C-alpha cells in the first residue's frame, strides 16, 4: 500500500505561511544551467507569500523555493517550486505557458491541472505561438466539463468561473456582458475564452491577483505531489473533491496552507504515510543559512548522513535532482528499498580463494571486515546496509566469542541482518534465533531438556538475552519509551526468573543442522558438529555453518510452559500447551515476545539512537513505535516503515544549535564518512581494514574500539543507556558513543586522522616531504583521500573552509569561529606561499600542506564528531 492511493479529504491542520525566497548558491562543480529559464508559475505561485528578495534571485526559477512554517510548531515546510523537474520530460519551452494553462484549469474546471494535461496544453499553446485563444475551444470540450457543469445555465456557468478563479460572484455588469457574448454564437466566444478574458482582466497586485496566486500555489503543490508519486490523479471522481478544496483558498495565506495540508493528511488508516507529517516539501528546522538561502543542501546532507555510510560528492545533487525535502527523501527511501541486497558471504569466499587461505582461520575475520568495508564504500543499497549495521548492534554476535572459529558463519549471520534489514522484525528475530552463529554465541545451540533425577536443566542464556536485548528489555515501557512506574515510582520488571526458565525450556532441542553428506534428520544431537566450510563446499554440499539450526525433538522439553502475559497476549494465556513440538513452540515463544507492548518502543528507540539521535523525545519514540505497531496496512514490525518513520520524522531535521539534537558519530561511521566525502581511493580498488595500517595494528577495533561483529560482549560496543559523567549525566541524557571516547582510543584516532589527511602521500608521489607510506607495506590497499578539488583554494582560507564545510557538513557555514581561527592559523604557519619563480612542485607541496592541515583539523574537530 503506498501513498499513491490516498484520497483527498479535509483535515483540521492549520499552517501559517511565512515564506522565504532565495536561490541556492552554486555548489562546487554544480553550475546553474537553468538559471535563465523563467518559471513564471513557480514565482507567481508563491508571490502572495514572499517578501524581500531581489528579482535576480526570484527569476532563478529552478532554484527558487519558498518555505512555509507551521504555526506554533517547529515544523517548517520547504517548497521548492521546481516545475521543470516536477513536470518531467515536457518540452522546456512549453514551460512558459504552464502557468497560463494552470489558470485556465482553475477558472474553467475549478481544479488544479493534472501533470499530463498541463504538459499537453502548454505544448499546444507553444505550437500556436502563444495564442491561447486558439486552443481555448478544444480545452473546453471534455466529458469532465459536461459531467460536472453540463446542467448549469449560461449565467450560472459564467458566475461559476468568477467563483472558481476569484472566489466571488460576478458583478452584474460583467455577468450580463459575458452571458450575452456566450449566447450570441459569435466566433471566438466560448466559455473557455471568456475564462481567459476574465483572467487577463485581473489587475496585477490587486486582491483578486493575490487570491489567484494562492490558488495557483495550491494547484502547483498538487501537481508536484502527483509527479512525485505521492498522490495520484484519479480523474473525475477526484476532480470535484479537489475543486471543493480549491474553493477554500482565499487571499489569506492560512487558507492556502490549510488546503495544502488537507491533501496530505486524510486520516486514511490504510496508509503508512499518515503517522507522521509527510510534508509536500521538506519539513526542516534548519531555516535559512548565512546567505539567507533556505539550507536545502544542509537538510539533505543530514538526511543522507543518517541513512547512508556517508555523503559522497554528487550525492546531494542526485538526491535533489527531482525536488527537495521530504518528498525527495521519501522517493529516495523507496528506491533504496527496491535495490537488491548486497550480501557479503560470497565476496568473502571469493577473497579467501583469491588469497588462498583456509576458511577457518583468524585471518578470515580480517577478510570479513575487509569485505564489510568494501560493501560500505561501494554498495548502492546504502539504506539497507546502514540499517543492517544498526541491527548488528542490537542483535549482537561477535567473533570475540564462540563464533571465532567460524568466520564464514559470522559473515552469513551479517547477511541475515542485511536480508531482513528492511523486512519484518519478526522474520528477522526468527532467522537470528535459528542462525548457528547466534546459537553458538548465546549457547542455544545444544540446549537440551532436563534429565529426570539430575540437576541438569536448560541453558538460560538465549532466553535471558533475547528478552533483555533483542525484544522487550528489562522493564515495562510506555509506548513513548518512558518507563512505566509502580506506585512507589519504581520500574516494573518485564520478566522474572520463572519466565527466563520457561523460555529456556522452550528453546531446547536445537543444534547444528546435519552434515552436508548426511540425510537430513539422520544426525545425532550429541554428535553433530560444525563443518569446515571448504570441505563441505568443495564436495558439493553446503556447510552447516550457514544453515539454520536443526531441531532434535527428543531433546526438547515439551511440557507446558507459562510465558509472558500481557493484554492481548499470544499464545492464549501466554501458555505453550504440553506436547507442542519444538519448532512450533519456538514460533509461539517468538510471537509471545513479538506482540509484547514493549517491543515497538524498545526497538524503535535503539534504532533512532543508531540512525538519528541519542536522546529522542518521547513523542519521537512514540511516532516510530506507532509505525512499528502498524505500518498502516495492519502489519506489525515492518522495518522499512520504521526506518522511514525515523528518517522522515520532524525531529530528524533539528533546529541548528539544538543542544541535545543528533548524536556523537559512531567512530567507524565517522571514518567511512570521511572516506566517502573525499572520494577515497586505493591503488587496487579494494577498501580494506589495511587502510587503518597506520599507526594501529591494521584493525579498526584497536583504533576505533568498533568493528562489525567484534564487540566485546552481547552488550555491544556501548550501552544505549550510557551516560558519561558531567553535564550529560546531570541533564539525565545519554550518549552511547561516548563510551568509546576513551583517551587511549582518541589518541589513536588523532594519529589515524593525522596520517590519513596530513601525512599520507598523494598517489604516485615521490615527494619526500610528505612521509609517504612510511608505515605501510601493502601499499595497494592504502587509502588515499582526494583533495584535488580543494588544492586551488590553498591560498584562500575562507574559500577553502567554506568548501570543506560543504563537503563534510552539506553547508558552507558549519565550522565554529574557533575552528576557523585555528585553521587559519595553521595554514598561515606555512607562510604566504612560494616565491613567484618557485617550481610547480614547490607550489604544490605548499598547497597540499595547507589544504591537508585544514582537513585534519576539521576531521578531528568536535563539530565533525557530531551527526
Amino acid at each position, binding site marked *: 500500500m503506498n501513498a499513491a492511493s490516498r484520497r483527498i479529504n479535509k483535515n483540521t491542520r492549520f499552517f501559517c505561511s511565512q515564506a522565504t525566497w532565495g536561490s541556492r548558491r552554486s555548489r562546487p562543480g554544480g553550475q546553474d544551467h537553468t538559471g535563465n529559464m523563467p518559471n513564471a508559475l513557480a514565482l507567481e505561485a508563491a508571490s502572495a507569500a514572499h517578501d524581500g528578495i531581489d528579482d535576480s534571485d526570484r527569476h532563478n526559477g529552478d532554484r527558487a523555493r519558498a518555505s512555509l512554517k507551521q504555526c506554533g510548531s517547529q515544523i517548517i515546510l520547504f517548497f521548492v517550486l521546481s516545475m521543470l523537474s516536477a513536470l518531467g520530460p515536457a518540452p522546456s519551452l512549453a514551460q512558459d505557458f504552464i502557468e497560463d494553462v494552470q489558470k485556465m484549469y482553475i477558472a474553467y474546471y475549478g481544479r488544479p491541472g493534472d501533470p499530463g494535461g498541463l504538459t499537453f496544453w502548454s505544448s499546444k499553446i507553444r505550437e500556436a505561438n502563444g495564442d491561447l485563444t486558439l486552443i481555448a475551444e478544444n480545452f473546453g470540450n471534455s466529458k469532465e466539463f459536461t459531467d460536472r457543469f453540463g446542467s448549469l445555465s449560461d449565467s450560472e456557468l459564467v458566475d461559476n468561473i468568477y467563483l472558481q478563479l476569484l472566489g466571488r460572484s460576478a458583478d452584474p455588469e460583467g455577468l450580463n456582458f459575458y452571458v450575452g457574448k456566450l449566447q450570441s454564437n459569435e466566433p471566438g466566444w466560448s466559455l473557455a475564452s471568456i475564462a481567459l478574458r476574465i483572467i487577463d482582466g485581473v489587475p496585477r497586485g490587486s486582491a483578486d491577483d493575490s487570491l489567484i496566486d494562492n490558488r495557483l500555489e495550491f494547484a502547483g503543490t498538487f501537481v508536484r505531489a502527483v509527479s512525485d508519486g505521492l498522490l495520484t490523479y484519479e480523474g473525475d471522481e477526484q476532480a470535484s473533491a479537489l475543486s471543493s478544496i480549491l474553493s477554500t483558498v482565499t487571499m489569506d495565506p492560512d487558507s492556502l496552507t490549510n488546503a495544502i495540508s488537507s491533501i496530505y493528511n486524510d486520516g486514511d488508516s490504510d496508509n503508512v504515510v499518515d503517522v507522521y507529517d509527510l510534508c509536500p516539501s521538506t519539513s526542516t528546522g534548519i531555516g535559512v543559512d548565512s546567505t539567507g538561502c533556505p539550507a536545502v543542501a544542509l537538510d539533505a546532507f543530514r538526511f543522507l548522513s543518517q541513512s547512508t555510510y556517508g555523503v559522497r560528492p554528487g550525492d546531494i545533487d542526485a538526491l535533489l535532482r527531482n525536488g527537495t525535502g521530504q518528498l525527495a527523501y521519501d522517493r529516495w527511501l523507496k528506491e533504496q528499498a527496491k535495490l537488491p541486497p548486497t550480501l557479503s558471504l560470497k565476496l568473502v569466499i571469493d577473497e579467501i580463494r583469491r588469497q588462498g587461505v583456509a576458511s577457518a582461520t583468524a585471518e578470515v575475520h580480517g577478510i570479513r571486515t575487509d569485505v564489510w568495508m568494501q560493501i560500505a564504500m561501494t554498495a548502492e543499497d546504502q539504506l539497507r546496509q546502514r540499517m543492517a549495521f544498526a541491527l548488528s548492534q542490537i542483535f549482537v554476535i561477535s567473533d*570475540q566469542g*564462540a563464533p571465532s572459529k567460524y568466520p564464514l558463519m559470522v559473515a552469513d549471520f551479517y547477511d541475515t541482518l542485511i536480508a531482513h534489514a528492511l523486512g519484518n522484525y519478526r522474520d528477522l528475530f526468527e532467522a537470528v534465533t535459528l542462525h548457528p552463529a547466534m546459537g553458538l554465541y548465546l*549457547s542455544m545451540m*545444544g540446549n*537440551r531438556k532436563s*534429565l529426570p533425577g*539430575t*540437576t*541438569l*536443566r536448560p*541453558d*538460560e*542464556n538465549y532466553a*535471558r538475552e533475547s528478552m533483555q536485548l533483542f525484544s522487550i528489555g528489562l522493564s515495562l515501557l510506555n509506548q513513548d519509551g518512558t518507563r512505566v512506574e509502580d506506585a512507589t515510582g519504581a520500574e516494573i520488571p518485564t520478566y522474572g*526468573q520463572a519466565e527466563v526458565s520457561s523460555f*529456556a525450556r522452550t528453546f531446547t532441542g536445537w543444534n547444528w543442522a546435519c552434515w552436508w553428506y548426511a540425510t537430513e534428520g539422520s544426525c545425532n544431537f*550429541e554428535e553433530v558438529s560444525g563443518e569446515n566450510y571448504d570441505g563441505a563446499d568443495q564436495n558439493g554440499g553446503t556447510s552447516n555453518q550457514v544453515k539454520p539450526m536443526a531441531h532434535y525433538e527428543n531433546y526438547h522439553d515439551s511440557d507446558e510452559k507459562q510465558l509472558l502475559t500481557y493484554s492481548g497476549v499470544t499464545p492464549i494465556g501466554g501458555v505453550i500447551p504440553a506436547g507442542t513440538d519444538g519448532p512450533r513452540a519456538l514460533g509461539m515463544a517468538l510471537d509471545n515476545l513479538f506482540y509484547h507492548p514493549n517491543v515497538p518502543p524498545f526497538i524503535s528507540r535503539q534504532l533512532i539512537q543508531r540512525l538519528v539521535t541519542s536522546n529522542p523525545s518521547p513523542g519521537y519514540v512514540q511516532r516510530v513505535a506507532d509505525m512499528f505497531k502498524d505500518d498502516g496496512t495492519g502489519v506489525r514490525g515492518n522495518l522499512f516503515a520504521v526506518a522511514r518513520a525515523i528518517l522522515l520524522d520532524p525531529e530528524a531535521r533539528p533546529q*541548528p*544549535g539544538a543542544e541535545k*539534537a*543528533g548524536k*556523537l558519530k559512531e567512530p567507524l561511521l565517522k571514518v567511512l564518512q570521511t572516506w566517502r566525502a573525499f572520494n577515497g581511493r586505493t591503488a587496487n580498488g579494494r577498501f580494506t581494514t589495511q587502510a587503518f595500517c597506520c599507526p594501529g595494528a591494521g584493525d579498526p577495533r584497536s583504533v576505533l574500539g568498533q568493528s562489525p561483529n567484534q564487540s*566485546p*560482549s552481547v*552488550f555491544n560496543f556501548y550501552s544505549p543507556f550510557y551516560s558519561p*559523567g*558531567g*553535564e*550529560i*549525566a546531570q*541533564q539525565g*541524557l545519554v*550518549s552511547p*558513543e*561516548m563510551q568509546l571516547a*576513551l*583517551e*587511549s*582510543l*582518541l*589518541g*589513536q584516532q*588523532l*594519529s589515524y586522522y*593525522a*596520517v590519513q589527511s*596530513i*601525512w599520507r602521500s598523494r598517489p604516485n608521489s615521490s615527494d619526500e616531504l610528505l*612521509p609517504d607510506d612510511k608505515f605501510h607495506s601493502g601499499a595497494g590497499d592504502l587509502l588515499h583521500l582526494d583533495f584535488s578539488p580543494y588544492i586551488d583554494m590553498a591560498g584562500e582560507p575562507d574559500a577553502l573552509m567554506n568548501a570543506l564545510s560543504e563537503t563534510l557538513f552539506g553547508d558552507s557555514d558549519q565550522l565554529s569561529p*574557533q*575552528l576557523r581561527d*585555528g585553521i587559519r*592559523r595553521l595554514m598561515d*604557519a606555512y607562510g604566504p606561499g612560494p616565491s613567484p619563480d618557485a617550481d610547480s612542485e614547490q607550489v604544490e607541496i605548499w598547497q597540499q600542506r595547507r589544504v591537508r*592541515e585544514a582537513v585534519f*583539523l576539521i576531521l*578531528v574537530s*568536535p563539530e565533525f*564528531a*557530531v551527526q
Partner: protein
Amino acid sequence: MAAGSTSFSPYAYAQMPALADYKSLVCVFLYGGNDSWNTLVPYSQAEYSAYARSRGLGETWGLALERSQLLPITSDAGGSDGATYALNPNLRALQPLYDSGRLAIIPSVGPLLEPTTKEQYVDAKRTGHRLPVQLFSHNNQQDQWQSLNDGTDGRTGWGGRMVDQYESANPVGSLPTALAVGTQSLLITGNRSVPLVLGYSGEGELPLITWGAKSSVRGQILKDIFTSSSELSSIYGRAYGGANMRTLRYTEVLGRTLQSAPNIPSLPDFLPAGAGLKQQLRSVAKLIAMREQLGMTRQLFFVSMGGFDNHDALMTDHPLLLQQLGDAMQSFQGAMEELDVAKSVTLFTSSDFGRTLTSNGDGSDHGWAGLQFVMGGSVRGRRMYGSYPILELDSESEIGSGIFIPGFSADQYAATLARWFGVPNDLLPSIAPNLENFSVRNLEFLA
C-alpha cells in the same frame, strides 16, 4: 556555569589535606560473572560430596572438578565448621600467596540492599523487602557492583565517589587519581573525578600530531580548539571536545612516565604488548613505580578480564581464564614487592555475579552470590571471610537453580576497602550507601 567546565577541571577542588603516605587500590573486574563454585571448591568430604552431586560429577553434562585435582588451602580462621576448601587446579599461582598470608578470600558476597534471607527473598514482592533491581542481568549487576546504589540511577561508582574526596592527594597537572586500562569504568567515575583510560599497548604512545615542522603550532591549535569546544551548542560536541582535551593533556605526561619507568622483573618489559590482564597490570605497576616522580599519594586503578560468562564449555574455558587471572595476580604481587610498595597496594576482584550451581548441559547460568579475592601486603590473608554455603539445592541460602543469596553485601566489601584507603567512617555512607543497613561495617580483611 560554562558548559562542559566540569570535564576540564576535575581536580580543582580541594577536599582533604595532602597525605604523606601512599595507598593504591587496584580493581580486577571479571566481566561475565565468574563461576565461584569452581574457583574455590569444598574439599572436606561431606561438603565436596554435596558439590559433586549438585554439579553432576562424572556426567557428560557435569561441571564438577575431580577432588584429586584440587589444590587444598588451609584457613587460620573462617569457613564453615570444620570444612576445608581447595582452589581450582589452574589457580596454582594463588596457593602460595594464600598460604603466606597475602591473599584473603570472601566466598559469598554480592549486591544486597539490606540483609536478606531466603524467606525474605521469596516474599519480597509482598512485603516490600528491598532487593537489588534486575538481579541476574549482566549489565545491571555490573553497574550495581560498581555503583552500589539501588541500581536505578548508577551514574557514579563507589571508587569514583571515594576519589572525589582525594583530589588534593595528587598535584594538579599530574595524572588523575583514577585510571582504567582499556575500557571505561563506572566504578572509578565520580561526581567530579573523570577517570583517565589508558590503552592496552601500555607504551604511552603520543599521537602522531607531533610530527613535522609545524607540530608545536598544530598541537597548540588543537588544544585551543578542544578547549573552546565548551562554547559549542551541541552537548555531544562539548563532551567530545573535553575528552580530547584530556587526551592531549594526559597522553604527554603518561607517555613520558611510562617510558621512563623502570623494568619490573615480575612484569618485564619484554612481555609483548597486549590486552591481557598481565599487560594491564604491568601498566598499573609502572605508574605505581613512578608515583613519587608524579607526586601521587592516592591512586585507584581499574583493570578487567572478559570471558567469564561461561554458559558454554565451562569445563574447558573457565580453567584457562583462572590460569590467566592467577598468573597475573601473582606477577603483580611480585612486582609490588620488587617495588617495595606491597603494603601500600591492595588488589581486589569484582564480577557481575556468581553463577548457578547447577549445569545447563555445558556450563552454568547467571547467579548472585560470588567469591572475591583480596591481595596485597596489608591483607590479613590465609583466611576466608564469611561462610561458604553448603552447595546443595534447597539449602539455606539457595533460591532455585543453584543460585545463592550473598552472605556479605558488596557495600560491606567496598567499605572495607575504602576504610583502608583512608576514608573516615563518617564519609563511608557516601561511598557505600547501603552500608548502614548492615551491622558489620568492616569485614576486617585489611590491616
